């Protein structure tokens, strides 16, 4: 069912499906979406926001007989995952913003996810309740206790149907293990452990144990004045439970094998591409910092995102990426302005489609980009309220880098740098994508004829 963005006979077309979130332009800071993640079947879609809330959408299972109408995602559960905290020792406020959500593979009727802010990871259980017990012997239905002297008979309580209630409860809280700000969490393929990474350290946890974790990477120098790089992202290999990677602010990726030693400060592989000297500038270091790293589903490749490009690496080749895609090369001459308005520090994420044939990442002006690896085609699309009619096909967009602007093109200077798409997600088994603008979540699907 999965295909690239180009089908025989023409380009794949993407259609608007849904948009979630407030319509008004005045964005409340708490509503800013900070992470988006499908679960392993794609039935559930979770978002986290700056206000510490998690909203889970569920795809309805209707219309299975009519494939042209894919089911919609509706709100399934909303809960406050993290609250703002204050670290009294350091006189610092700890933001409640959800940095990452990762789903656990489903093992029973309930769903589990990990959500993290800068300092604390929580395991949430999301379970359904559609029955309630009635007919207790010792208490009334409203909970008041009966007078035991008035009880003359015994009955067996029965479960009667009720309106579906979805409850989220925190099952584990993994706290006090990170001195610096957590940027990543990743569940291991063994389904028992997971890692959490901050700027200088990576810790390994067991999902059942909250009072201790193993430190597996520590790049903190003895003298902080010698600090030259920080960890920016980390992820476990999808199949090999002993392997993980972490990316750095210097543009390198290290692959580590936990079987080699308990402390994985020495990498097994170091992926680094030599810098192009002709591109040297004040800002070379900032734009080479990797903001996201993601393994392909098949585990043979990994993708990294830096400020201007997406790179695909073959795990067997450390010297350079096998593919490089320019996301918005027209920004290279604007780096100074982007430094002044802070956009150069934006951390874009990236994602693979289900069969690893297409990769996607966000850009500015609410544009997002897809790169079809097989077909060597790419497309720029826009998430906007203007293109939000049901099943409206998205028109490819084009940015004019210089010279004469053609009709329908947009010039670089007209781009709205406040409208950035940092978080995108692709359904693991279908051509459905979730794209987060500042405070809205757009769901697009491919046009099925």
């Amino acid at each position, binding site marked *: 069912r999965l295909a690239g963005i180009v089908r025989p006979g023409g380009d794949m077309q993407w259609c608007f499906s849904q948009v979630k979130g407030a319509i008004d332009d005045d964005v409340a800071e708490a509503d800013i979406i900070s992470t988006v993640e499908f679960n392993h079947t794609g039935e559930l879609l979770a978002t986290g926001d700056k206000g510490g809330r998690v909203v889970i959408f569920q795809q309805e299972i209707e219309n299975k007989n009519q494939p042209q109408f894919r089911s919609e995602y509706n709100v399934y559960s909303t809960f406050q995952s993290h609250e703002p905290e204050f670290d009294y020792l350091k006189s610092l*406020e700890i*933001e409640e913003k959800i940095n990452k959500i990762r789903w656990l593979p489903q093992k029973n009727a309930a769903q589990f996810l990990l959500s993290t802010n800068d300092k604390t990871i929580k395991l949430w259980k999301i379970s359904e309740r559609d029955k309630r017990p009635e007919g207790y012997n010792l208490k009334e239905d409203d909970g008041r206790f009966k007078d035991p002297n008035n009880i003359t008979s015994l009955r067996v309580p029965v479960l009667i149907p009720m309106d579906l209630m979805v409850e989220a409860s925190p099952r584990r809280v993994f706290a006090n293990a990170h001195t610096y*700000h957590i940027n990543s969490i990743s569940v291991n393929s063994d389904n028992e452990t997971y890692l959490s990474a901050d700027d200088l350290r990576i810790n390994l946890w067991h999902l059942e144990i909250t009072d*201790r974790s193993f430190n597996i990477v520590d790049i903190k120098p003895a003298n902080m*004045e*010698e600090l030259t790089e920080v960890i920016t992202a980390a992820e476990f290999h999808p199949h090999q439970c002993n392997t993980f990677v972490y990316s750095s*602010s210097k543009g390198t990726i290290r692959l580590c094998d936990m079987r080699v030693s308990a402390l994985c400060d020495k990498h097994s592989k170091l992926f680094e591409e030599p810098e192009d000297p002709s591109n040297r500038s*004040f800002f070379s270091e*900032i734009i080479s910092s990797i903001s996201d790293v993601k393994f392909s589903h098949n585990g043979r490749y990994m993708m990294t995102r830096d400020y201007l490009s997406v790179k695909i690496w073959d795990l067997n080749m450390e010297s350079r990426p096998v593919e490089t895609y320019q996301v918005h090369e027209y920004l290279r001459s604007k780096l100074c302005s982007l430094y002044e308005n802070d956009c150069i520090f934006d951390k874009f994420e990236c994602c693979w489609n289900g069969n690893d044939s297409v990769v996607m990442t966000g850009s500015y002006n609410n544009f997002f980009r897809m790169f079809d690896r097989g077909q060597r085609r790419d497309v720029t699309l826009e998430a906007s309220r203007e293109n939000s009619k049901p099943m409206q096909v998205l028109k490819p967009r084009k940015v004019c880098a210089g010279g004469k602007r053609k009709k329908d093109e947009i010039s670089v200077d007209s781009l709205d740098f406040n409208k950035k798409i940092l978080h995108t997600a692709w359904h693991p088994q279908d051509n459905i994508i979730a794209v987060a603008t500042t405070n809205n979540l757009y769901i697009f699907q491919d046009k099925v004829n």
Partner: protein
Amino acid sequence: MSATAAMEVNAEARRILAVSISKLYASRTQRGGLRLHRSLLLSLVMRSARDIYHSSRENEGPSCAQPTPEEPMDTGSNPGELTGLPEPQPEPQPALNSAELASEEPDSAEEDSDSEITEDKENLSPTRQSRKRRGKASAAPDFLPSKRARLEPGEERYAAPLGSCRAGAGESLTALSLNRVIPAF
């Protein structure tokens, strides 16, 4: 490099330094505390800009309007970074999580730029590194914001007692070593 090109580069470097320093100041009041990654990137940009600034000032040479030459830079004595992150207090390596966390969030880099100089600035002989401003050459670069404290409404400013000031930021910039030369672009 021609004199005009050097001046342009100089002006650009100064502007970037000014922008960077104001970003550093602003990040002190950010919710969630100083971000290590961001601070590191800012310091890298500042270091590039500082190196370009100084090398282009040297290149200005005879066309320079400064009446007195700059104080010689102290190379090689200190491998530390310019606006690197300050000394953290020692903290326990957590194999077991402890409820106590040592305080080690980076403070303002500006406050600690002095701590990275291995030489003892407090006890130097006056002839070598005087804190007195000796004219334009050793004045603080004009892109730096004023170091005077911001007054709350109703407060008045009093003259600071003699001998209590630290070295001006300008002298810090010239005195710190260049441990890396970033090739001009």
